[in-house]
């Protein structure tokens, strides 16, 4: 096994893994606070890819060519509108069913994911959509004296940097601000938190918004990376990100990123060194194995049943 190939596969896995991780955050935060899976989260990610293309086109029509400016504006605008989708999702599919059976919001979320998917299909068409190449080129890093090198495109570098940055910001918000304290309190005991004067409905809405914003960051960067998307991408990516969240311990923020990275690396290494036909089989077998030995995931807190 050549070191340059090993290094390149590690890079491939890390980039794939950070994008899984960013989306997994949405799953894990929502689960942490209301104990339910948000099945429409993959579609939120898909919507953000379309928004990216729309905002890019709008900026281009104004004749703006500065890449950093475009990137920042598109990222900001996409995050805002996608966050709005997240808020809306909570308002329609979750809040009216807050005190009904546990299964009801699950079904409304699945229903809303179908609505989002078909709404985008009908309004934007079923064809693949392309995104102009904003950042071209790559870094070539020499690995050994034989001229073997690994390549990281500028967009891939950006994915990793932005993902790490947003993880840091999110961790700061959750641990150092009053908003974060309210989130953690609601997570621990919603009734008690509301008795102490926390508007739990508002906190839950904010968690949905944060999750959607993280999915939007992934949506912008990933669609810039692959250059194309269609209304289907939410499904496969959503399942992978959900797996990452479970792997890392659902409910845990660092767990979501760790799970994403492990899943990305596992897929990359298995496809690269064994067989790409069975990479998903391998990734899911790994999930099963980890859950056998650590039922609440790698960084998850074991559920304590109160007596």
């Amino acid at each position, binding site marked *: 096994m050549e070191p340059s*190939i090993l290094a390149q596969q590690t890079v491939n896995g890390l980039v*794939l893994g950070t994008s899984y991780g960013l989306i997994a955050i949405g799953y894990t935060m929502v689960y942490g606070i209301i104990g339910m899976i948000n099945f429409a989260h993959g579609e939120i990610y898909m919507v953000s890819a379309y928004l990216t293309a729309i905002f890019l086109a709008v900026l281009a029509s104004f004749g703006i060519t500065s890449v950093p400016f475009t990137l920042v504006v598109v990222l900001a605008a996409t995050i805002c509108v996608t966050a709005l989708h997240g808020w809306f999702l909570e308002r329609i599919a979750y809040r009216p069913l807050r005190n009904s059976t546990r299964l009801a919001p699950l079904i409304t979320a699945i229903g809303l994911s179908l609505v989002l998917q078909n709404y985008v299909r009908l309004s934007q068409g*079923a*064809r693949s959509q392309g995104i102009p190449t904003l950042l071209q080129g790559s870094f070539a890093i020499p690995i050994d004296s034989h001229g073997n090198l690994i390549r990281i495109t500028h967009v891939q570098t950006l994915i990793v940097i932005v993902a790490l940055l947003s993880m840091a910001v999110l961790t700061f918000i959750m641990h150092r601000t009053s908003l974060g304290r309210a989130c953690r309190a609601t997570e621990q005991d919603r009734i008690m938190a509301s008795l102490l004067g926390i508007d739990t409905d508002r906190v839950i809405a904010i968690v949905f918004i944060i999750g959607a914003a993280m999915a939007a960051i992934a949506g912008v960067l990933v669609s810039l990376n692959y250059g*194309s998307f269609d209304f289907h*991408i939410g499904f496969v990516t959503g399942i992978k990100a959900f797996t990452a969240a479970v792997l890392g311990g659902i409910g845990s923020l660092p767990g979501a990123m760790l799970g994403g990275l492990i899943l990305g690396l596992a897929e990359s290494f298995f496809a*690269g060194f064994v067989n790409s036909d069975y990479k998903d089989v391998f990734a899911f077998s790994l999930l099963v194995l980890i859950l056998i030995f650590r039922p609440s995931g790698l960084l998850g807190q074991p559920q304590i049943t109160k007596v």
Partner: protein
Amino acid sequence: MKKTSFYGMVLALIALLAPPAMAEETIPIGVAGPLTGAYAAFGEQLWRGAEQAAKDINAAGGVNGKKIELFKGDDACEPKQARAVASQLTDRHGVKAVIGHFCSSSTIPASDVYAEAGILHITPASTNPMVTERRITTLFRTCGRDNQQGSVGADFVVNKLKAKAIAVIHDKDTYGQGLADSMRAELHRMGKKEVLYEGLTRGEKDFNALVTKLKSVNADAVYFGGLHNEAGPLVRQMKEQGLKATLISGDGIVSEEFVVAAGGPTFAEGVHMTFGRDPRKIKEGQEVVEQLRKTGYEPEGYTLYAYATMQIIAAAITATRSTDGATLAKWLHTNDVPTVMGSKGWDAKGDLKVSDYVMYRWNAKGSYAEVP
């Protein structure tokens, strides 16, 4: 007031459910393919071609004085849905012939339904060998077969590119893997062996791990059996990682959407593919090509194949004065039919007697041209 409108609605519903009242005057024909879903671009090609042909035939007086009426069937390239759509076309709309199904994995299950109903079924686009290998006498195709396509591909890779390390990739689907397998079989027949044979997953976008693997085996030619949605990101990631290998594929990437999926002509440039001799260049079809372009639609890919298929069905019904599948099939097995793509004739299996696959290359302008 409220009551009457309610009865009105009930009546309207009954009218909707009842079989078409005009059934006596028209000949119902089904057009089935992926009209929605990720492969909707191909479904549109089939529909546009068939629709234009039906319009032209009806304008010229119809078939034996009867007008052709088209019914859409959407299978989204899903085998289960294809079977349901086939039953709907035969049972509810009572179609007398079917143009269609695009994906081989849809055509095969649907063809059983049509065979049971005893109607003529012609696919303009499904190239998997299994389509015509199951002894269904009423099933024909107006496109080639993957083994013909695979051998043109293999010949190009070995004799023209003189590739030393050939990798074969497929998408694990009936069409994609079938195409890759026939290309591989031809390679083996020529005494060559591929350095890599692997599948990727449809619907995914990240094939970087596979690309790095291609680099590690020093592949200089990559043959891909699959569709443009995956071929696009694959070739983009090959170029991004600096892999200087030629990507060769089949007719699954014959759509401008391939360029979109790759992220622009810079990435799509240099990709090769096998496809029938460009039907837009055949002289019999010039008038139709002009007509379609006037409506703002470029008749790319399988559009003219669908047009020709409609003509073939009309010709058979006109000649036999029957809509019985077996009678029509018997006539098609023994007669050649003039179409917009030239004269077509079939062997006992329902395959074209003459296949016309040639190699094309995508250029920097985002279109393709025949390789001289």
